[in-house]
């Protein structure tokens, strides 16, 4: 136990964070005279302090004020590997930028694994207390908001009674001038400017600094902002039990505080991080092994509908004004919400980047249904000139002899035919991408002659401006200075002008053209926000240095994302617009969440969670977690109200057990009054939609059968030769040599007309990754002439060479496995992603029965069978063995008792590159989709491609990627990230 505590300030209670958990804790503790020290890593924000959009002439906003990682700015996005989690940093935490929604979770969502005391509506009294403080109500100031009217119309038109799930959520905003109902501070009425999610400039948003935190300071809480807790440790120093190591960003110095009781309220990811990296010493409940389990991103998704037929005015009204709850027909209890997402007019151009041409349409979930109508703005056009592209040369190299007109670029030969139409516009944009280096190359070289950056580089220790590294830095500096940091000052204009002069373009034209950074048709856009109850819990893991990774079962989560996307697409079609989803999700399969929950889940059994139902860390007296990290399962709705209600409950439990409270303090009386006033709050507000109308929606939708499963299928033709068993060469190399020596190629033709994974979910989850195979084989069976025979069987795609049964036997600490099981993981410790991360050599195993089953053809493609990246040969060269069952199976296909299998022939077969490009790739298609616009088709293709090419990438490129990862690792001294299952 660390006892380095000399010189540290001592406090009875320390609260880390000022979001919906920390603010509640700070307030209640202060009211009871406990004078907590409140540590907040971000800044204080008043109405005029929130960072703005880029200046009208600028490209990027002031990153120092936006990014926490730069200068303690407002936003703290964390790349957790499989997902990006976005946190707010500031005095008031997430309340500064949330969309004001105060919803209670449906009773179905508050079931096991939540502790018994929370289930159903047990949390309602505490919700009432939060409501007494925040006074939520639906936005009523402008009943004719265009975006709300249009969206609710779209909800109603969704069919199957889906519109019955429409409701207007209560918002914690002030809708009239007057005193704050909790603190009495003067506030103003919401002007409906849409800036809720970028910081309210009107003093109208009831953020926590107006209520809980204002009361906390009034009653003696000491608040230190820009004080970031970097580590906690248990100590034994009198009655002090914890040391809190803090970075004071203002004075640029480390500080230490001691605490008897410590409340972690730093947000789900950061509270979990602090606990995972804590020096806990004795850990009788073994919580360290379980910290991070049950992490849930809350199934957040985002879409932007462009070119709505009617103006939808996203800049009018608060960010969220209406919502739709959609029950999941496939799984009881699961549901998703779709809400509108308004934003301030100044962010029009930023939102335009959802349709960046550089995204190549990857995130286009629907195409606009109809040509522009009267009064509608012109749709975005691809206006750059058509020019020959270097891709043509690439194509020639890959598919020689293909007749094409000079200059024709045909990337669609690489694409499944199902997507070829939608990729037509992409083809044009691809040309423009190829152009970029041609445009910029000459000017970059010219710029390098200059002296300014050379001098900068010359001052970097160890780098010469003339060396390759120095030159690269120079180039980077130019771009960074001019592009990233420039606002409308002349310096950046001129710098960028130099860079792009040869192209005759200015940076704003470039940004608009390549990044979609434009406000064209901005009044005809509608942002859709999705969230829901996760299908599966994930895990957060941390290096000793605190770097975070999330292990999510994205396979389990993806159908939820797809369902939300499907609903959004239907809305977009109704509105006559085009839906664009998150570019990160569409391009990299990486969701973004602003609703991280879990990581320190509550459990009654100390062996199955991290905290007890009162938020106390199991086995660590004095340490509590009081924010969304304690959720055992995501609530599905915007979680802030639940976080605050849980915090109210658990800080009250703490105060009940606290002996030293002076009950005569005015704060105690104030708290008692607030409790009394909160009694029956919900019953006095029956007109509000405090919960999504899930039951009504479910009743209306009925027991809709789930959609048929999505599958993938393709065809394949392999040609080669087969020799009788007595001349079978030993090994693949000998086969190759024999073939090269003139064996009769073409004597074996495998024409597999259908290679199919009928249910992609099953295929991916199956350890054997098995696909159904049907087709014909042309060969001469022993004693017969060459002839065509039907074949059927299966293919195991990219399975490891080791025994399949051993594939998922990665060791897991028993407690983590048990905890995951308790939290609802379907197969604890068994996830596909973990196996895919393996870089072991792989095989493709074909097992085909010929005709009546007497003959069996077994083929193997060996991936990475020898050194070197020969992926083409490895994945298209099939080593074939022909077996005969003796005696043959009966007419019914039953194998005879005591049958043996004899090797009759062996050989080798290959795929033809041209046929592969033109037929196999183009023939790859998704089955089970609901028409050509079904967005799940793109998902399924991407998922299958990610499985196939991702596995190949890991097999062939483990070394280089490992080297890159090591070079980029911010914590080189820390533990390397091991494959899933290895406890870091």
């Amino acid at each position: 136990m660390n006892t380095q505590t000399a010189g540290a300030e001592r406090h009875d209670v320390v609260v880390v964070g000022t979001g919906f958990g920390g603010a509640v804790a700070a307030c209640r503790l202060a009211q009871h005279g406990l004078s907590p020290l409140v540590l907040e890593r971000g800044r204080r924000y008043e109405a005029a302090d929130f960072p703005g959009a880029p200046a009208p002439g600028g490209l990027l906003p002031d990153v120092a004020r936006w990014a926490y990682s730069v200068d303690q700015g407002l936003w703290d996005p964390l790349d957790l590997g499989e997902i990006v989690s976005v946190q707010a940093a500031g005095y008031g935490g997430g309340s500064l930028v949330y969309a004001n929604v105060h919803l209670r979770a449906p009773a179905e969502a508050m079931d096991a694994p939540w502790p018994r005391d929370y289930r159903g509506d047990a949390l309602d009294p505490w919700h009432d207390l939060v409501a007494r403080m925040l006074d939520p109500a639906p936005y009523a100031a402008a009943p004719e908001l265009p975006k709300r009217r249009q969206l609710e119309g779209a909800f109603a038109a969704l069919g199957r009674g889906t519109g019955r799930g429409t409701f207007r959520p209560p918002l914690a905003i002030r809708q009239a001038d007057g005193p704050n109902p909790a603190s009495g501070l003067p506030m103003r009425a919401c002007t409906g400017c849409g800036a809720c999610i970028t910081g309210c400039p009107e003093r109208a948003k009831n953020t926590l600094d107006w209520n809980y935190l204002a009361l906390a300071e009034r009653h003696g809480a000491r608040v230190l902002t820009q004080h970031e807790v970097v580590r906690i440790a248990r100590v034994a120093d009198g009655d002090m039990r914890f040391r809190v190591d803090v970075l004071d960003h203002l004075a640029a110095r480390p500080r230490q505080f001691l605490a008897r009781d410590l409340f972690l309220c730093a947000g789900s990811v950061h509270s979990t991080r602090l606990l995972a990296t804590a020096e806990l010493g004795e850990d009788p409940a073994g919580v360290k092994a379980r910290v991070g389990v049950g992490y849930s991103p809350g199934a957040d998704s985002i879409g932007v509908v462009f070119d709505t037929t009617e103006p939808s005015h996203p800049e009018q009204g608060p960010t969220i004004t209406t919502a739709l709850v959609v029950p999941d027909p496939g799984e009881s209890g699961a549901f998703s919400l779709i809400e509108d997402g308004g934003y301030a007019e100044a962010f029009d151009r930023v939102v335009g980047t959802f349709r960046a041409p550089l995204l190549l349409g990857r995130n286009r979930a629907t195409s606009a249904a109809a040509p522009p109508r009267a009064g509608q703005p012109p749709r975005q056009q691809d206006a750059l000139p058509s020019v020959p592209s270097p891709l043509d040369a690439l194509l020639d190299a890959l598919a020689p002899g293909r007749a094409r007109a000079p200059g024709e670029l045909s990337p669609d030969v690489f694409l499944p035919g199902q997507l070829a139409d939608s990729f037509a516009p992409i083809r044009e944009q691809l040309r423009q991408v190829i152009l970029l280096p041609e445009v910029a190359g000459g000017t970059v070289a010219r710029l390098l002659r200059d002296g300014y950056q050379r001098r900068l580089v010359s001052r970097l220790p160890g780098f010469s401006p003339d060396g390759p590294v120095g030159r690269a830095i120079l180039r980077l500096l130019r771009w960074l200075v001019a592009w990233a940091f420039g606002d409308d000052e002349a310096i950046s204009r001129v710098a960028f002008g130099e860079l792009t002069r040869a192209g005759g373009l200015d940076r704003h034209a470039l940004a608009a053209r390549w990044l979609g950074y434009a406000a064209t048709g901005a009044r005809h856009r509608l942002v859709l926000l999705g969230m829901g109850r996760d299908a599966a819990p994930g895990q957060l893991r941390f290096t000793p240095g605190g770097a975070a990774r999330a292990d999510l079962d994205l396979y389990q989560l993806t159908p939820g994302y797809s369902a939300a996307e499907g609903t959004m697409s239907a809305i977009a079609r109704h509105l006559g617009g085009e839906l664009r989803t998150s570019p990160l999700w569409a391009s990299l399969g990486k969701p973004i969440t602003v609703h991280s929950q879990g990581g320190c889940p509550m459990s009654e059994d100390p062996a199955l969670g991290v905290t007890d139902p009162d938020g106390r860390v199991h086995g660590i007296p004095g340490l509590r977690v009081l924010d969304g990290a304690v959720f055992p399962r995501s609530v599905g709705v915007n979680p802030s109200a639940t976080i605050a209600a849980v915090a109210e409950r658990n800080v009250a439990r703490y105060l009940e057990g606290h002996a030293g409270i002076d009950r005569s303090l005015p704060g105690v009386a104030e708290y008692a009054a607030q409790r009394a006033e909160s009694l029956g709050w919900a019953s006095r507000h029956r007109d509000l939609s405090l919960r999504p109308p899930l039951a009504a929606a479910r009743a209306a939708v009925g027991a809709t059968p789930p959609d048929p499963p999505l599958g993938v299928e393709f065809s394949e033709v392999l040609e080669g030769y087969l020799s009788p068993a007595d001349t079978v060469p030993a090994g693949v190399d000998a086969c190759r040599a024999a073939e090269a020596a003139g064996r009769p190629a073409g004597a074996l033709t495998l024409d597999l007309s259908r290679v199919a994974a009928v249910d992609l979910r099953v295929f991916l989850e199956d350890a054997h990754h098995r696909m159904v195979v049907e087709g014909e084989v042309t060969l001469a069976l022993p004693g017969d002439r060459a002839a065509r025979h039907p074949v059927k069987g299966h293919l195991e795609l990219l399975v490891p060479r080791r025994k399949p049964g051993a594939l998922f036997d990665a060791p897991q600490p028993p407690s983590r496995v048990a905890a995951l099981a308790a939290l609802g993981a379907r197969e604890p410790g068994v996830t596909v992603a973990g196996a895919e991360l393996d870089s072991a050599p792989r095989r493709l195993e074909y097992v085909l029965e010929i005709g009546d089953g007497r003959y069996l053809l077994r083929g193997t493609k060996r991936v990475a069978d020898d050194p070197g990246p020969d992926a083409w040969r490895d994945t298209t060269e099939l080593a074939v063995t022909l077996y005969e069952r003796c005696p043959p199976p009966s007419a019914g296909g039953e194998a005879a008792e005591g049958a043996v299998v004899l090797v009759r022939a062996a050989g080798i077969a290959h795929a033809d590159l041209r046929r592969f490009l033109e037929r196999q790739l183009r023939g790859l298609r998704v089955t089970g989709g609901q028409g050509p616009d079904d967005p799940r088709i793109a998902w399924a293709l991407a998922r299958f491609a990610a499985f196939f090419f991702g596995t190949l990438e890991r097999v062939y490129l483990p070394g280089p990627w490992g080297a890159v990862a090591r070079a980029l690792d911010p914590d080189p001294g820390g533990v390397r990230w091991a494959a899933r299952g290895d406890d870091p």
Partner: protein
Amino acid sequence: MSTERAAFARVTAELHTLPELSVATAGLSRPLPLRLRRLPARGTPRGAVLLLHGGNSGSDTFLLPGGGLASALARAGLDTFLLDWRGSPWTMRRLLEGPLLAPTVAAECRAFTYDRVAEEDIPAALARIRALVGADLPLAVLGHCTSGGTLAMAVAGGHLAPFGVSRVVHVALATFYEVPWDGWVKVEDFILERLLAVAPSCRAIDPRAPGLWPAVMRDEADFWPGAWLTPGPGPTLELLRRLTFMVGRAWTPERLAPGLDDGLLLDVFGPFHLGLFLHSGQLVRRGFAAPFDQADRIDRPRLRAAALRGSGPPSPYLDPRPFRGVEITLVAAGANRVWHRDSIDLMYDWLLNDDPAARRGRVQKLVFPGYDLQELFWGRDAAREVYGPLTRALGG
């Protein structure tokens, strides 16, 4: 004579120029001359105010347009004093007429630091003011731009305490120094430090006289020709262009009050001592106030690794306790492109972190969205939007 020039002449005529202040400074062979002028309050004074101008410019800053902030304060019943401290063009012109006051320019630079201004110039002026207005009249100090920082050093160093200053107003700058990206690039380029080596006779830099700049400065300014604003007609735009290269764009011509573009502003600016420039560069690199030439063991404090090591001597100016006794108003120009407005925001958080109970009601922040640095005084709408809150903050 233009209307604006006439107004300027009128207010200048109303000023009482007090007997010259003379400050003896260690390391210099002669005392430094300072100028203190007084614009008496209309009616019975309700308080007295000392106005401290920013770098490269003089106290005339507060007399434009149409009498400027100083006239507004005097009308509000405040006895208004304008100090031309040692960095002012008024002092510098007298200095540059004579020989070096120290063996070398580098040695002379050590007397031209913000520490010395805080320790010597401001107390000298306050002592004179107290002698004039008596011991009981409430006294406030406004520091603009670099003087906002110097004023914070003076508070932290306890140099105001003997004079009973009850209110301070920091415009754009206080204890924390943040700049936009181009300012940061420039200080990291160590242009000024190189001047000591390559132009040993350069004692000061005058934005109005680029012909006298050392070659290394001219080269830097000419690196991206036209980058520092498109040259326009008239000397005022050329001045702005040079200032923009030196410190960042201080105003937008279209947003200035009418009449200020006919060369009147040229008289406000002048040479600024290299030592003060060097100290500014150090402060920007460090991010917070520290004495001149204090070892920079944490060069960029916001690099968390360096900060977590916590090395480097503590800056004597990073003690918030001396600020407890005064009412503090922090003023941010929302579109400031000389100093990043974070300079003010960080100060606000820092002050509130120190014993909020003692602070409550004694610290306020005023933000003027869309204002460039000098527009707080010279902007088209400044008299209507800015002067009132500033006057109230100063006790008017």
